[in-house]
């Protein structure tokens, strides 16, 4: 492909092999991420199994509606990301740039809402290890909920931040017209990453916000 001569690395036979390798590599990376999050989720699950009542009580500190809205924001960003990949496949430069920008904006909105929620928790003094008070004798077990809350949302937010940064780089390159129908693997792979982060949140939302909310 004459448009992107720099794209083929010399140890590969052709662009197809290169793309094949990159895609497989990305999926394997995502699987490692699954196991990474799996570790905290397991920790969360055992803690919840051992202290069901405390977890229910503590989860009331998180507003399910805000969580739902944030989920929606992230899902919209997934759509714009999917459309960005679509645009890159067709080589439409302007839409690609636009969708990437939209994804970044939505990602930032999500992070902003998250920041708001976190600051709220700080105000309510439910930050274990820093400033924690919880009414009732279950305080100790409730602290476990908040520990996991911060660990899981924090880890997720960290992934979001990285994702936004990566998309930022893509945005600049897309603007310069570096991606063509023949070579747009970076857009696709970043898309996979972004969707993965979305999926993590799809699980975090019910796990953290929706524990026995009628109680």
């Amino acid at each position, binding site marked *: 492909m004459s448009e992107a001569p720099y794209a083929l*690395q*010399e*140890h*590969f036979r052709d662009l197809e*092999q290169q793309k*094949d*390798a990159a895609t*497989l*590599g990305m999926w*394997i*990376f995502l*699987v*490692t*991420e699954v*196991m*990474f*999050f*799996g*570790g*905290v989720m*397991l*920790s969360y699950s*055992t*803690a919840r199994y*051992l*202290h069901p009542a405390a977890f229910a009580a503590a989860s009331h500190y998180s507003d399910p509606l805000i969580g739902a809205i944030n989920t929606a924001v992230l899902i919209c960003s997934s759509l714009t990301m999917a459309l960005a990949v679509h645009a890159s496949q067709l080589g439409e430069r302007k839409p690609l740039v636009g969708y990437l920008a939209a994804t970044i904006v939505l990602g930032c909105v999500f992070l902003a809402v998250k920041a708001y929620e976190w600051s709220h928790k700080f105000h309510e003094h439910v930050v*274990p*290890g*820093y400033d924690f008070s919880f009414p009732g004798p279950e305080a*100790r*077990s409730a*602290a*476990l909920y908040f*520990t*996991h809350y911060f*660990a899981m949302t924090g880890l997720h937010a960290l992934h979001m931040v990285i994702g936004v940064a990566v998309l930022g780089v893509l945005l600049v390159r897309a603007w310069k017209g570096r991606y063509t129908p023949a070579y747009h693997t970076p857009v696709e792979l970043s898309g996979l990453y972004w969707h993965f982060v979305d999926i993590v949140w799809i699980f975090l939302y019910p796990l953290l916000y929706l524990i026995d909310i009628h109680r």
Partner: protein
Amino acid sequence: MSAVPPVEVEHHENYLNTSYGVWSWLLTTDHKRIGLLYLVSVTFFFFVGGFFATLIRLHLMTPQGTLVDAATYNKMFTMHGVVMVFFFLIPAIPTVLGNFLVPLMIGAKDLAFPRLNLASWYIFNAGGLLMIYSVMRGGLDTGWTFYPPYSSLYSNTHVVSAVLGIFIAGFSSILTGLNFLVTVHTMRAPGMTWGRLPLFVWSHYATSIIFVLGTPVIAITLALVGIERIFHLGIFDPSLGGDPVLFQHLFWFYSHPAVYIMVLPGMAVTTELITTFSRKRLFGYGFVAAASIAIAVIGFFVWGHHMFVAGQSFYASMVFSILSYLVAIPSAIKVFNWTATLYKGSISWATPMLYGLGFIGLFVMGGMTGLFLSALGVDVHVHDTYFVVAHFHYIMVGGTVMAYLGGLHYWWPKMSGRMYPEGLAKFAAVVLFIGFNLTFFPQFVLGYLGMPRRYHSYSPEFQVLNVMSTAGASILAVGYLLPMAYFIWSMRYGPIAGPNPWPGTGLEWLTASPPPEKNFEVTPVVTWDAYDFPNRHDLKYPAPTPGFTPAQTWPPE
């Protein structure tokens, strides 16, 4: 010796002499050079770990301990374990031999992601430096297992930096595994089907599965320990509502499969050694390949056998025990196939073969004692005693380290272009074998007698056996220093090896020694199976002694 006479072959352009200078090494993306970089790092860590081992053994000469106080002793074995496991044995074979050989063996120009490969070396060293930093600042005393609440609350040593070091080094494991998986899937030369892959590659493939799926779990687990320690949270600490047994589950979910990370590459090397030095096809290629994958998969189901008396449920213990027996079966299959390969072979007693046979013997002893440990009733008695210490040293030192050394000898001509001194090498191998058994066999007896591990002082009746062990360790030390010395010597003075001194059947032997920068002048097209000695008419054997008619010769009638 089958070494080609030291005729100075004409100077050829190879990966070692295409460019010179520090930066040409530190910024290289050539998998062969990165393999050598890893060789340097890993050897360094081996001597750090060996240094602590030496101190441990010296200290344990007398019941009260001769060398250090209790706190220091605890740091010794912890740092010995951590350094040996995370910074020596886990990376050793995959990153040195694997890096060097996997692309060569499948006929690729490089690994799929060369820059990632270099990055993983830097990440590894960054983790290692952090570990060394913790050692310098006063060390770590939690045992390599980091059990909370001791590690997260009570220890006042440098847990956080050590944990961070391992966390970082973990990413290098993940990247290495990912790179191997993708390379094996996408970069094989034409004709190199799955059924023709050398078993070295199969084993590394299986190892990579564990790297990729297990390492993230230890990363997050140790991260949680670090967080718990810094912020005094209660994820694992029972006094804050957490559950310490959960840590053990998470830790062993990685660390049991990790023992197969340590042994599968050893098996990989052994398979190559046994076939090359028997000049014979591997007996049961398909079964051995499948056994590697089976070990990697079933190995993930048995972690609870480290926790039989740790407070997991009775039923969980039962299940983990039976699964531990299942995971022994593929290992058994491998051992039997290796042995059968020797049958009617043409067996050479070259140094690498001595290591290969040594591996089988010591691995069998280590593995069989693993069966003692997975028998619930017996494990209750021997858990956390020297029996366990002996078990794992038999596999890890007797098995994997031996295989690693065997592999280094075997591929040294490929890596450096020169031969090591055969006589001295045989001598070192025998010294190692004797020293090893003297060091660790008495520990089986000590363990069943009931001497607990991680003891800086012990009851006087255990002394004689401990002294034997210490004596063995000093012989062992000599055995390790010898190869170090003659490898360095041979880089300059060793006889020139030629492309295929043994001769071996892998693609790596089809290219020059040392190989050119892009591995092959032309990408090879593979039309033969692995280890297919009878049909490899291209292999050049040294001329036969006149007047001698062997049973099978090349070329076959």
